[in-house]
């Protein structure tokens, strides 16, 4: 069991460019981003990635009111993932299902709302909602899934800054290998566009994107990039041990063959390419693969002046001599979906195993020479033919790096 191969047998997502994988994939190949301009408390309008899924598809109105946006996104993605997996859900042993949801942060939205609420009552705390604590506990998004779906196995959130989506997947994989659960719902969610604090914090840091056209605000690798577009979104996967998936005749979407999480141990916000290199190398080693075996590197690059250069430096060091490895970025379409980013961006690339295409990174009008990589797929999709392996990066504050290696499932 410890050596079990772990496969993806279903996924559910909501993103600014679609609430299903086919819709998202179409927009990625057609080069269609969608970033809105939304009013932000105290700040005026800001660019942000907004999801348009229907919360009432899987929740009652009262559940939407009591719960959080992160919980609602998580519930939507979990239900979609289970449907996609064709699990016989009625007969799945619910205490053998684990829920592992990555979040960059949780509770900012709800606490800001309550402070705003009591500000209308001269800051009298007797007007503070009794819903505040269940809304802000760190396990909220994962816990809301269990209530919605009657899951009685373990649930918790994985706090891992913007590496959280990958970290959620890794946690699910590990729990399957430990035999703690038989089905893992794993990935990440973001409700971050509903907290002004995230936007104001990035602005104070000089890392919040601005652009007259919101659809051009997120522009990794472009010389004129000026920061992050914050987005909401979510993506959860159904993970199973290969033997279980095969026993029930599941459709296997892909296999997670390698992963790594490490720490920079250097700075609160500045990335460290040396540790990023180590992280990618460890993930490749775990997958027993060489850099040249990877066809797509999906970058974390968030469109900040410094971060993009550093990731390119790290990628160049590993993949510089790999003529068959191509590099892209998904944030140029959807902004930075924070805790969902790793899981969501991986999802957008999984159809490559079927269609043989690499979706481009868009909005690159003038490539920053410091971000130049020989196989950066810019503005137009690239037809490769056979695509067998993807390396997906997600990095976060406090120096947390994560890399996932996912392969086309080849049987056996």
């Amino acid at each position: 069991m410890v050596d079990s191969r772990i496969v993806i047998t279903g996924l559910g997502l909501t993103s600014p460019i679609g609430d299903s994988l086919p819709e998202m994939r179409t927009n990625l190949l057609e080069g269609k981003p969608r970033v809105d301009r939304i009013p932000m408390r105290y700040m005026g309008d800001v660019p942000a990635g907004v999801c348009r899924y229907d919360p009432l598809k899987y929740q009652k109105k009262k559940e939407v009111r009591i719960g959080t946006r992160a919980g609602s996104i998580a519930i939507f993605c979990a239900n979609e993932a289970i449907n996609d997996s064709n699990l016989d859900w009625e007969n799945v042993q619910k205490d053998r299902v684990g829920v592992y949801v990555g979040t960059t942060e949780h509770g900012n939205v709800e606490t800001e709302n309550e402070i705003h609420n009591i500000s209308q009552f001269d800051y009298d705390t007797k007007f503070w909602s009794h819903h505040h604590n269940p809304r802000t506990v760190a396990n909220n998004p994962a816990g809301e899934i269990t209530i919605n779906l009657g899951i009685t196995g373990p649930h918790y959130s994985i706090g891992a800054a913007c590496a959280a989506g990958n970290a959620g997947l890794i946690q699910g994989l590990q729990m399957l290998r430990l035999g703690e659960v038989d089905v893992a719902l794993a990935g990440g969610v973001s409700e971050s566009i509903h907290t002004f604090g995230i936007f104001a914090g990035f602005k104070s840091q000089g890392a919040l994107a601005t652009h007259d056209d919101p659809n051009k605000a997120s522009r990794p690798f472009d010389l004129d990039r000026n920061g992050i577009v914050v987005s909401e979104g979510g993506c959860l996967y159904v993970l199973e041990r290969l033997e279980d998936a095969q026993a029930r005749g599941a459709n296997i979407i892909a296999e997670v063959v390698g992963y790594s999480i490490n720490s920079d141990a250097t700075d609160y916000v500045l990335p460290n390419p040396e540790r990023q290199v180590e992280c990618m190398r460890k993930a490749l080693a775990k997958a027993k693969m060489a850099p040249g075996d990877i066809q797509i590197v999906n970058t974390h690059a968030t469109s900040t002046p410094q971060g993009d250069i550093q990731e390119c430096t790290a990628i160049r060091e590993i993949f510089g001599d790999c003529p068959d490895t191509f590099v892209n970025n998904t944030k140029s379409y959807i902004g930075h979906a924070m805790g969902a980013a790793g899981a969501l961006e991986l999802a957008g690339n999984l159809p490559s195993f079927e269609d043989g295409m690499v979706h481009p990174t868009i909005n690159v009008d003038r490539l920053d020479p410091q971000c130049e990589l020989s196989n950066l797929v810019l503005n137009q999709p690239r037809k490769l033919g056979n695509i067998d392996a993807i390396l997906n990066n997600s990095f976060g504050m406090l120096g947390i790096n994560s890399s996932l290696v996912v392969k086309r499932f080849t049987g056996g």
Partner: protein
Amino acid sequence: MTKDDIKKIVLEIIEEIAPDEDLADVKPDVRLRDQLDLDSMDFLDIVMELRKQHSIEVPEEEYQELASLDSCANYLLPKFNQA
């Protein structure tokens, strides 16, 4: 302010906090919890909305007075007329 006015106010609050419920046939003499999907957190919401919207305080030991629409009207009438 009449008892009917108060029942209308309470129903409007319930409509906000339990938007999935059909309130057309709520029986005034039957416990709200016996005919609607309401839990203790929902009753805290009713207390909070009375406080926010009408500056009415309901002490914890008197929460049971909100059990039915009739008991709400009886209990809240003097409070509303005092406010």
